[in-house]
């Protein structure tokens, strides 16, 4: 028996020339994106980059002004109706007067193939508060409940909009640790964040957004190399900028009075070369470029970016 044609794998998410404005504000300005089943993708960008709008459109909560959005080959609404999508929104309260267990059970009952409620409660660390009413939970616990609600549906696609925004550093770490355990079974994950570290640690692929556009899209390591630029500042008078730019690891150099600023692809390498060569350098300072700065570099110089 032969197959006439190879089965075509349907993209988990397909965005085609998608645009969306709110009044005069262009939130998403023509983006194309294909996410394959099983990929873990971070949508990274500063506030106002268009991440939440993109996610709302993937979930069918907002309609694009133009372009198409497909989830599992169908409209987002159809995917949601099939029970294929689990989502954790940035906003969205819990019904205050039911217990955590009741709430998760209520949600689970709506799906064709939910996970076991007790299992989900255990895996999201909610067993101790399972009988507590939602109104009595802490911020971190509330966030875990919302994660449990997204997960209990046993979705093929899990969408998380800034899932750690309300958490402290420790809570954030805990969240991603449990998240990693819970998503090792090949489901597709799309999450929005404005923390490079979260994107880098958890995602296979980072889609970088700024001002409603995708400015970079590639493996996490690649994006990190671009976004993870570091800056060396030093007091170093009387050295020509082109001399500094010639140092390995330095991408560009600038001067303000006696101070120089070096943008570095590899700050460690640059520093090792800089000090022996210019022992007079003082007030050394190495800082991460930060996303905002990285975006400025990227949007000014898009050729250097994997697209």
């Amino acid at each position: 028996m032969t197959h006439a044609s190879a089965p075509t794998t349907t993209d988990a998410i397909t965005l085609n020339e998608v645009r969306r404005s709110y009044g005069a504000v262009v939130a998403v300005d023509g983006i194309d994106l294909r996410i394959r089943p099983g990929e873990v993708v971070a949508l990274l960008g500063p506030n106002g980059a268009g991440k939440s709008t993109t996610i709302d459109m993937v979930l069918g909560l907002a309609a694009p002004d133009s372009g198409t959005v497909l989830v599992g080959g169908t409209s987002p609404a159809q995917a949601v109706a099939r029970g294929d999508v689990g989502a954790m929104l940035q906003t969205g309260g819990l019904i205050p007067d039911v217990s955590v267990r009741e709430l998760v059970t209520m949600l689970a009952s709506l799906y064709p193939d939910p996970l076991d409620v007790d299992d989900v409660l255990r895996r999201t660390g909610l067993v101790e508060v399972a009988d507590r009413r939602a109104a009595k939970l802490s911020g971190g616990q509330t966030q875990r409940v919302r994660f449990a609600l997204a997960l209990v549906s046993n979705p093929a696609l899990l969408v998380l909009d800034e899932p750690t925004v309300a958490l402290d550093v420790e809570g954030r770490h805990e969240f991603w640790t449990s998240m990693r355990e819970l998503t090792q079974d090949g489901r597709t994950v799309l999450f929005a964040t404005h923390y490079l570290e979260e994107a880098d640690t958890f995602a296979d692929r980072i889609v970088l957004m700024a001002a409603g556009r995708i400015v970079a899209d590639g493996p996490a390591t690649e994006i990190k190399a671009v976004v993870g630029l570091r800056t060396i500042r030093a007091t170093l008078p009387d050295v020509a900028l082109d001399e500094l730019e010639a140092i390995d690891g330095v991408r560009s150099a600038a001067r303000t009075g006696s101070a120089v600023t070096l943008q570095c692809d590899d700050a460690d390498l640059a520093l090792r070369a800089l000090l022996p060569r210019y022992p007079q350098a003082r007030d050394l300072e190495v800082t991460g470029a930060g996303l905002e700065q990285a975006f400025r570099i990227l949007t000014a110089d898009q050729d250097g970016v994997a697209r």
Partner: protein
Amino acid sequence: MSSAVYVRAEIRRTLRNRRFLVFSLGFPLLLFLIVAGANREVKDFAGSGISFALYYMVGMVSWGSMAAVIAGGARIATERQIGWTRQLRLTPLSARTYFATKVASGYVLALASIVVLYLAGALYGVRLPAEAWIRMTLLILVGLVPFAVLGILFGHLLSTDSLGPAVGGVTALFALLGGAWGPIAGGSELLSQLAQLLPSYWLTQAAHSAFTGEVWPAKAWIVLVVWTVVLARLARAAYLRDTAR
């Protein structure tokens, strides 16, 4: 997949909400116990041949059940405000089924209110043939339909702050103009004609069927259907406006 679990949970929640129970069940009951209690000896109310307790019981039944079904849908406003409806839109639960859960819990509460008032009526000596109890109850349940839809409309128009006053006020107005609290027309032909255009008038007539023995005329059905369709259109528009982003 079944929405039955969700509907059951919703009804359980409703019955657990004490404040809601007190206002929906408690007020009409309290009013009945006080007012009908004070007039227990009136066996021939205003020359109608029926006891005051019966007359007042059916009035409170139509008001109480109306308040219960309106409040059922109006609670959507709270869930909208906290963002729960947004979460639900990401589940296979359809908007239609979601509304049905609210209507169902409103109806459960309305039935509870009706039964409690019947029992209180019986306590004050109200006796009716079985078919009168049944006819009255069935007609009331049908007469509540436009009010259930009104509740859903309120659920999409109101904020939680305005919910209480708006629901209370509108319910009172409907009850008053529909004659649930006693005849208001005072012999004015015009007022009486206008009152007959209200669904609450026919709801009250449904309750009155206990002693008039009359099932609604065709006009009643027309009024109820028109109100239901118009309110459903408005509720749909309000829902679409609310979910458009």
